[in-house]
């Protein structure tokens, strides 16, 4: 139960930050609808954000393990 709540909180946090970053990167002057290139940019930005999240998370975990090994 605790686990599920935290996981949901994390997904919400991830979605919010991702939306904010990708909106800023992909939308110049907001028009009357998301055009094709904006939609592609958002999908791509989202995939890269999650890739980057995984890379950052992995780098952090291996650093933590190295620090613990050195203690």
């Amino acid at each position, binding site marked *: 139960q605790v686990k599920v709540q935290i996981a949901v909180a994390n997904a919400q946090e991830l979605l919010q930050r991702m*939306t904010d970053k990708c909106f800023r990167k992909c939308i110049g002057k907001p028009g009357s609808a998301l055009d094709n290139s904006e939609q592609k940019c*958002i999908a791509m930005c989202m995939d890269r954000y*999650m890739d980057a999240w995984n890379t950052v998370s992995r780098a952090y975990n291996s650093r933590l393990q190295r620090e613990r090994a050195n203690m």
Partner: protein
Amino acid sequence: MVELEKETETAELQRMVAAEEQRARLTAQVHNFMEVCWEKCVDKPGSKLDSRTETCLANCVNRFIDTTLSITHRFAQIIQKGGH
């Protein structure tokens, strides 16, 4: 009789609290939109909000919501496929 009144009062109070919480959430969301859209749409604040800026602000809110929906939808698909 008194009991019933009390219950009605409690229910009424709960309804009011829920309505205020809802309003607070909407307000927080407007603050949020302002963070993004004030920067995107207002360059130098002039003597009035011209119609171009007004349109930009309204579009900004709507495109931001579109982006949220599109990202949330895609995210749900990825989760369901168990992928990434």
